[in-house]
């Protein structure tokens, strides 16, 4: 098979053309955050860091500090990820390996939930949260987000569990260990790649989440970067794309860092989980 660049120049050209809009957007996302274009133009005129002023001074008297919002977002994303992982590794193991009544039913339910239109339930979810007294709190959004991510998480983890040889489990049982111990000591280490992929993935999902915090936690205490950024953009007195982009860069940095560090694992999740 010919995989040299020379032999594939048409293909590369086509790909480059198709990718151009995205590349331009990424490029200017970066450039505009640290420069100022001429009025009505796009070519950067001056390099400057004033767009990043939001890091050390409030951009508007009504907005909470970016650091507080970032902290919230971090708490939101990481707690969500931990919850999703904790619930998924147990539930998926039960569905994959344990024999108990109604298992079939739960499996069918899982597949159904996997494709369920969750966001349409948001009104009713509000009621539930409200009964729990968790409306307008970070904890409430975390619970909801974690619950909505669960079917995906269980699905992925079940895929990984399914690929662990049964014999390991049998050997453990035969060696005298309880099923719990077998799971904890023998099986869990085998699904570590899946677990870390899920952890990263649900962290990213939490980091990006917009609608849930918007609707379920509108108060200042639970602002996250997504709602913060959207509010800054929506505020029609400040058409400052440079500022938007700087905030956007700030918001995206962890995502990009995670992508660069864990590329392989992220791709893993699609490979492992969605084979159907």
């Amino acid at each position, binding site marked *: 098979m010919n995989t040299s660049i020379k032999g594939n120049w048409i293909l590369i050209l086509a790909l480059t053309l198709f990718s151009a809009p995205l590349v331009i957007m990424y490029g200017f996302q970066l450039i505009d955050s640290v420069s100022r274009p001429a009025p009505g133009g796009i070519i950067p005129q001056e390099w400057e860091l004033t767009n990043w002023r939001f890091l050390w001074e409030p951009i508007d008297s009504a907005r909470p500090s970016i650091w507080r919002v970032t902290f919230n977002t971090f708490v939101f994303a990481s707690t969500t990820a931990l919850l999703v992982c904790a619930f998924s590794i147990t539930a998926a193991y039960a569905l994959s390996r344990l024999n108990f009544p109604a298992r079939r039913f739960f499996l069918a339910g899982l597949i159904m939930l996997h494709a369920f239109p969750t966001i349409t339930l948001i009104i009713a979810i509000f009621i539930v949260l409200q009964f729990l007294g968790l409306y307008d709190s970070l904890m409430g959004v975390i619970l909801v987000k974690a619950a909505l991510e669960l079917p995906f998480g269980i699905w992925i983890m079940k895929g990984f569990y399914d690929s662990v*040889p049964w*014999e*390991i489990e*049998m*050997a*453990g*049982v*035969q*060696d*005298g*260990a*309880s099923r719990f*111990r077998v799971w904890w*000591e*023998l099986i869990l*280490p*085998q699904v570590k790649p899946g677990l870390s992929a899920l952890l990263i993935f649900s962290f990213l999902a939490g980091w990006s989440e917009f609608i849930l915090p918007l609707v379920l936690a509108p108060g200042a205490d639970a602002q996250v970067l997504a709602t913060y950024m959207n509010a800054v953009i929506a505020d029609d007195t400040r058409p400052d794309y440079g500022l938007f982009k700087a905030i956007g860069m700030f918001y995206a940095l962890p995502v990009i860092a995670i992508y660069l560090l864990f590329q392989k694992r992220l791709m893993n999740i699609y490979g492992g989980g969605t084979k159907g």
Partner: protein
Amino acid sequence: MQIKLQNFTKRFGDTTVIEDMSLSIASGEMIALLGPSGCGKSTTLFAISGIHRIDGGSLHFGDRDVTTLPPQDRPVGVVFQNYALYPHMSVAENIGFPLRVQKLNTAEIKRRVGEMAELVQIGNLLKRRPQQLSGGQQQRVALARALVRKPDVLLLDEPLANLDAKLRLEMRSEIRRLQRETGITAILVTHDQIEAMSMCDRIALMRDGQIEQISTPSEMYERPASHYVAGFLGNPPISFLKAEANGKLMLGAENSLPMPQGVDASGPITLGIRPEHFGPQHQGPTVTGRVSFIEPQGREDLIDVTLPDNQRLRAIVPAGHDFALGQDVNWQVDLSRTHLFNAEGNRL
């Protein structure tokens, strides 16, 4: 430890895999469960280990009824086909795991792991991880792990299937040595007749969830209880001929053989002749046919002879003969070693 499986029945959903099977194994004996895949031999093994529930019947280890005991509580060690070593643990940790579960102290675990490793001759590999070991070494670790907790019974599930031919020979005798040295009662599940015959005291040949015959390897080879057993054992396999018994055994119009002694039969029967009991070098009645296939094997050749009624007989002939394809031959059958089966397949 004597094992007694009585009226064992196993169902998966609606399908009954094993019905009403009984098997008893003497203490210190090594027995093979032999049969083609799907015959229920692994199911039996897993039932004995406790991984599968027993749907009917009972299982005793010695006097103890273990029918409903979970696998954790049964004094059983298992070696799996793919060894099932814990990939994230070192060899020592693998072997030590069953002891750790028993909450033995570290020093004791270390001592016994060391002992066990010496026994299976992997004392120098204790720090390695399973993926750094060869197939044979992994096999030894698996054996060590199965034996370290001093079980009463050792179960081996196709233990040699994943090894190359040379290692297989080596491990065959190695496993037998270990079994003899520890005096443990062992059950070997295999589909390989050579393994079964060479390693075990007795063979239980299974077919469709039933034990077809249980006896020593030589007994089973010499006196197969059924058409099925005869056909399963022996390599190259036995040749079967359809014959009509009416005082003589009629093989088509041209050939006939005298009735072997002590057999009384009439009507259609099946005659089984192993290749080593047919050929130009034997004493006995002859059969005519034409050489239809020659397969040199080095020390000897396999030669197929097609009889006039189109049935085939295979012969093992020492190398250095000058038979050629298409040649008509008239060869002897060692009549006393032939096997006769009735229409139901049972030995006559």
